[in-house]
């Protein structure tokens, strides 16, 4: 009820004035009505109030949202504008709704020309160079099936613009959907010409690298093939998967039951257990390989006697990641090295013995002369002086050999190269050694052809030294018959041969022939009276090589004799070779 009326009514009621019943009812009714209306009005006012507040709030919210949306739109616009990728939005009928600047640039179309057009009117899509029909184009597929489509450099997609420009394309399309309906699509695309070029480069590099890798592998295989050392690779079942020639040679040569023409009785596919049969009891090859495989640690077995040889076995695991996938075995023939080691020891033994002998003779004879001077006849004294003299010469020769060797090895020998006739030196040497030959009832002759040989460029003294070595050896090792010296021209060299009818050289001895510590093979103590250090041939070899030639064993037959030959360059050739004079010798 209205407040004024209410107050009135209260006053009236309060004063107790008698209010007629009808008035009271009427007032009550009015009051009620007013009260109701008031309430309603208050409600309305209140709800109006609320509504206005609500409206303001909603309005504010709407404004905020608009602001956000505007910001989003602006951001999207910026992104679209600055995107390198072309972006086109189409509706479900393939009509272009919007096209960003990048797309415009790529297609050579402005926004006005594009918006509203059908997508297929903007450009053609090429697959493998051929135009795709409308329904095969990515946009269509996406609109039809609502699935995104991504095509990359691999798919060989291209585009042809209205102006005829063509370029390769990477494109992805995505559908725009409401809850159920497809309402359009977004197409993002870019020009991948650069990427294609880069991919081409990468592909070429891959091919090149693969080639390189293939070459390296071939080289590795070749070097493994050509290794002196035997190389065997076996898988985890210890089956041979790779084996080089050296292994076949080393191990094959020791197979006693090997038929002559079958080289690959040891071969790929063989089991290690089979190879073990060659090695026999001296090394449990199979068991050791297994152990290496399991423990993943390498093992070395040295100086295993296998037939006539001494071999070292080096077994290594082949580990990939953490697993053993096989073993690699190196087989090293150390027989010669052992021989050489032994002969080194023997050399020093022989050398010390050889030096001591003439020293004993000199010391002893001089001591005797001093003590017994009055008691010895003149002839005896002369004999002793002879012995002293020859011993000292022997000693000097030996020491010269050692010094020569030392200097040769250090490259300090200087050759006095001059054109010379070999024939003259041969004559000299024969004269000097004639008496030795005669003393042993041997002949020593040379062919007359030697005098007619063309001149060589060499150091005369060294040539003489080499000849004395070869002829001296020949005489030493010959019991019956004699020594013949011949010569001939061989290409650009003169070759001199020294042939004897002596004992010949055993196979084993041949191996060490021109090596430093020669006199090995037979028992040390039974060496023959060669009165030498065994250095002669080695020195001769270094000398001939230093003069541009070589020395070698031509042939030998045990019991029949041997022929050695050395060569020297003809004057004509030698003068053409710039580095010949003063050549350093490396052993």
């Amino acid at each position, binding site marked *: 009820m209205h407040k004024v009326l209410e107050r009135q009514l209260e006053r009236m009621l309060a004063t107790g004035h008698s209010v007629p019943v009808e008035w009271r009812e009427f007032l009550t009714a009015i009051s009620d009505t007013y009260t109701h209306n008031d309430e309603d009005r208050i409600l309305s006012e209140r709800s109006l109030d609320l509504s206005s507040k609500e409206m303001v709030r909603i309005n504010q919210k709407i404004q905020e949202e608009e602001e956000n949306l505007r910001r989003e739109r602006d951001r999207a616009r910026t992104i679209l504008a600055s995107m390198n990728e072309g972006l086109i939005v189409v509706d479900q009928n393939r009509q272009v709704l919007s096209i960003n600047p990048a797309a415009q640039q790529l297609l050579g179309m402005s926004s006005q020309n594009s918006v509203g057009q059908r997508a297929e009117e903007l450009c053609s899509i090429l697959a493998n160079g051929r135009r795709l029909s409308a329904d095969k184009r990515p946009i269509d597929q996406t609109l039809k099936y609502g699935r995104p489509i991504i095509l990359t450099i691999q798919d060989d997609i291209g585009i042809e613009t209205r102006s005829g420009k063509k370029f390769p394309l990477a494109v992805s399309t995505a559908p725009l959907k409401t809850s159920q309906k497809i309402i359009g699509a977004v197409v993002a695309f870019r020009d991948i010409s650069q990427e294609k070029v880069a991919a081409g480069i990468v592909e070429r590099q891959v091919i090149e690298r693969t080639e390189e890798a293939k070459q390296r592998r071939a080289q590795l295989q070749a070097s493994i093939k050509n290794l002196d050392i035997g190389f065997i690779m076996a898988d985890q079942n210890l089956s041979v998967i790779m084996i080089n020639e050296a292994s076949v040679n080393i191990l094959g040569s020791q197979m006693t039951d090997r038929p002559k023409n079958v080289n690959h009785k040891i071969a790929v596919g063989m089991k290690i257990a089979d190879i073990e049969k060659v090695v026999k009891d001296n090394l449990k090859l199979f068991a050791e390989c297994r152990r290496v495989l399991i423990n993943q640690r390498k093992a070395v077995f040295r100086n295993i006697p296998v037939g006539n040889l001494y071999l070292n076995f080096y077994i290594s695991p082949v580990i990939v990641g953490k697993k053993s996938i096989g073993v690699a075995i190196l087989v090293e023939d150390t027989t010669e090295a052992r021989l050489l080691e032994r002969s080194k020891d023997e050399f020093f*033994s022989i050398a*010390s*013995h050889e030096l*001591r*002998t*003439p*020293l*004993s*003779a000199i*010391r*002893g*004879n001089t*001591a*005797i002369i001093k*003590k*017994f001077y009055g*008691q*010895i006849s003149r002839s*005896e004294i002369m*004999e*002793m002086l002879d*012995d002293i003299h*020859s*011993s000292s010469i022997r000693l000097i020769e030996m020491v010269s050999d050692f010094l020569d060797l030392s200097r040769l090895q250090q490259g300090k020998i200087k050759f006095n190269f001059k054109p010379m006739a070999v024939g003259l030196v041969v004559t000299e040497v024969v004269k000097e050694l004639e008496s030795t030959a005669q003393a042993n009832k041997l002949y020593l002759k040379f062919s007359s052809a030697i005098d007619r040989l063309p001149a060589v460029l060499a150091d005369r003294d060294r040539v003489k030294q080499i000849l004395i070595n070869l002829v001296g050896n020949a005489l030493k090792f010959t019991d019956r018959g004699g020594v013949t010296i011949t010569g001939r021209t061989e290409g650009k060299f003169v070759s001199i041969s020294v042939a004897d009818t002596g004992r010949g050289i055993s196979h084993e001895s041949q191996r060490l022939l021109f090596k430093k510590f020669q006199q090995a093979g037979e*028992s040390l*103590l*039974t*060496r*023959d*009276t060669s009165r030498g250090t065994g250095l002669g041939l080695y020195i001769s070899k270094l000398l001939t090589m230093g003069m541009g030639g070589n020395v070698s064993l031509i042939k030998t037959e045990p019991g029949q004799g041997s022929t050695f030959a050395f060569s020297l360059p003809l004057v004509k050739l030698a003068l053409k070779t710039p580095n010949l004079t003063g050549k350093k010798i490396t052993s």
Partner: protein
Amino acid sequence: MAKILIIEDDPVISRMYQRVLKLSSHVAEIAEDGEVGLEMVRAVTYDLIVLDIMMPKVNGLDVLKQLKAHQETALVPVVILTNSVSDKVIKAAMAMGAARYLLKSDHDPMEVVEIVEDVLRSKKS
């Protein structure tokens, strides 16, 4: 005055020892290798044998072995006179019963004679 066999392949050396033994009133004969030496030993009785090690055909140690293997020769004292210094060889020779092992270059020939006479004396006693 002993009868001595020198088994030595180097004539310069063997002559020298023969000479010095002669000058010391002994008789010395020379065998130029092991084979000849063994022959001579079988034919003649020597008071002492001077034996070289490094020789052709049969080396000194083998000769020593053979000497000691036969009754008739086993008791003849053997003095090894060599320029071989190998410990192995020395041990082997002494183990086989050589009386002495001498390095040629270590001694004047007269010293060798003294040692030979020493061995002869100890054999007698």
